[in-house]
């Protein structure tokens, strides 16, 4: 579903930190494009600051954070903190990558949902994001 409430979903796919494993992010960018969304990919080596700036400048509905390098416990909450600081906290933030089960409640608590691991069917990820955007827009 590309259109929610009459408007296409706009999503920023972001890779925070130094780690360069981007196979998942690249695949999802294509999957989101195939779903008809407008996709902006930040590329590698982003700070939380750079990600939030890009998200606000691009006026996206969703930020999708990809962490393969065990940095989710810093970057995911940090992005939420900066969004709040810049009064953009209604933006949806979803996560994915190598994220241990035991870390997920912490992430959910600050508002980062999904946190999909390897092997998650793309359809599941898309459905989750659509659901979040629908809730945001209603």
């Amino acid at each position, binding site marked *: 579903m590309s259109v929610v409430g009459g408007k296409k979903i706009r999503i920023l796919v972001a890779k925070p930190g130094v780690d*360069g494993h981007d196979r998942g992010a690249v695949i999802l960018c294509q999957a989101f494009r195939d779903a008809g969304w407008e996709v902006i990919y930040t590329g590698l080596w982003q700070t939380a600051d750079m990600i939030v700036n890009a998200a606000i400048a691009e006026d996206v509905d969703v930020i999708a954070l990809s962490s393969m390098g065990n940095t989710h416990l810093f970057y995911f909450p940090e992005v939420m903190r900066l969004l709040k600081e810049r009064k953009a906290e209604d933006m949806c933030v979803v996560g994915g990558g190598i994220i241990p089960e035991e870390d997920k409640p912490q992430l959910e608590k600050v508002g980062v949902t999904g946190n999909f691991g390897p092997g998650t069917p793309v359809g599941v990820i898309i459905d989750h994001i659509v659901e979040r955007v629908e809730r945001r827009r209603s």
Partner: protein
Amino acid sequence: DCLKRFETESGIPVKDLYSPEDIKDIDYNRDLGNPGEYPYVRGPYKGMYRKMLWLKGLVTSCETPRLTNERFKKQIKEGQTGLRLNSDVNTHACIDPDHPLGIREIASNACPHWALPELEETFEDIPFEDIDIELAHGGVHSAFTMFCQLLGVAEKRGENIARLRGSTINCPIGSHVSHQYHNIPLPLAKKMNTDIVEFATRYVPRWHPTVPCIYYPQECGITSVQALALVLLAAVAYCQSALERGLKFDEFAPRLVFSLTGEIDFFETIAKMRAVRRMWAKIAKDRFQASNSTSCCVRIALRTAGDTLMAQQPVNNIARITIETMAGIFGGAQSLDSASLDEPFGIPTDEAVTVSMNIQHIVAHESGIPLTPDPLGGSYYLEWLTSKLEEKANKLIREIEGMGGIYAAIDSGWIEDLFKKEKIERQKEIEEKRRIIVGVNEYVIPSEEEIPIPRYKHDVQEAREQTLAKLRKFKQDRNPEKTRESLRLLYEGAERDENLIRPAIEAFKADATIGEVIGIIREGQGYSYDSFNMIRRPDFLNF
């Protein structure tokens, strides 16, 4: 219940029968040869594993040098004969732990090696003369810094570097196209690649410095056909660079190693290894006019494929690692690095490491596979597939050469597009069940029913704090004059475009950090100090 796929992993259709008809044009002496004879299809040595088993290893790196050292010792006790060292992402990217981008990622997946004392501690009480060391660093700048640091550690110990045995993954092309710490301009990466080859050829004769690596590219999803083409194009490029530097082909070619992936497609992995030996032998003889036969014979270091290991029902990964290890031995690998069953989760547990070591021991001593070289040689399917891979890879090589060569294909974005296409295609195959992955898109069970496996207790917070404290103290305690002078000499060497290995070794011995060494080299070569443009050269380096 039936097969869903009738192609190899590279997409080559597999027929319902192979027979003598399929290999009738193969001439044994011309196209295969005995092991140890041109074109080396059946193996680089006569007798192969009867003479000497492959180097058994596992990529190793825990969150601190102390823990890494303990793990090395445990693995040596359990029969590891080739140590494979990894480092954390910051070390790979050649930034110090206090770099603003890297500070959140210290020790997140491996050990930080930001200055000599860390590497000294990693190898404490492990004599270099007893062991073979592979530096498994993806980016060329980290290959460079780790090689220099290792030599620095050896020299500080009073060991003769001419006796150091091992290898460095040294592949600007592989790391660039697979986005493995490619935060280094390609011209500088090429220079460092040749600096390593030149220095090792002259001063570390038992080292293998010319190691093109397509492990990371295959982890991105490219096929074995594409990987074959890429590793040969890379090897040719590095050899050409070494020749331009003034080395003779027969000086460095005998120590060439290809770092390849042991894929889950059993026969395609074996065929790939056999094909690459034949293809390289022909290139060495015809293109480079090799004068001696060892220059035509490439060694293979095999790493089993990380991307085939799944988080769903991880115990299944033991089967996958075993298939890939067996393929590596049927294919005649000189060293084999078997991944651990908990690869999808993080640093391997002690238990997982023991299992992977034992897989290698079981293949060595229980299976009978190593008793004779190339035991599958002559198989109708295998010989056909070996030739078919060669044919397809050659076609792709010609296509890329037609574009102006591998560097041109990279510059134009053609390689990037190819990689992107393959990443997406592999995923589609899985989503559409054109490729079955047990536990992921078929034979799925609820996660509660999975056999639980032990998980590594990764005290990353502690490791981070410890590292930052160590770094602070290191910078306080060192003699800034001594460090500054060594980096000034390194800068001048970089300005004059000299071989930078020796000045870098001296800088590390004078307590420079990896960020400082690479930053100064970058500036000497005309680039910004920091590849991420977040920090400047430290004030005390005022030259």
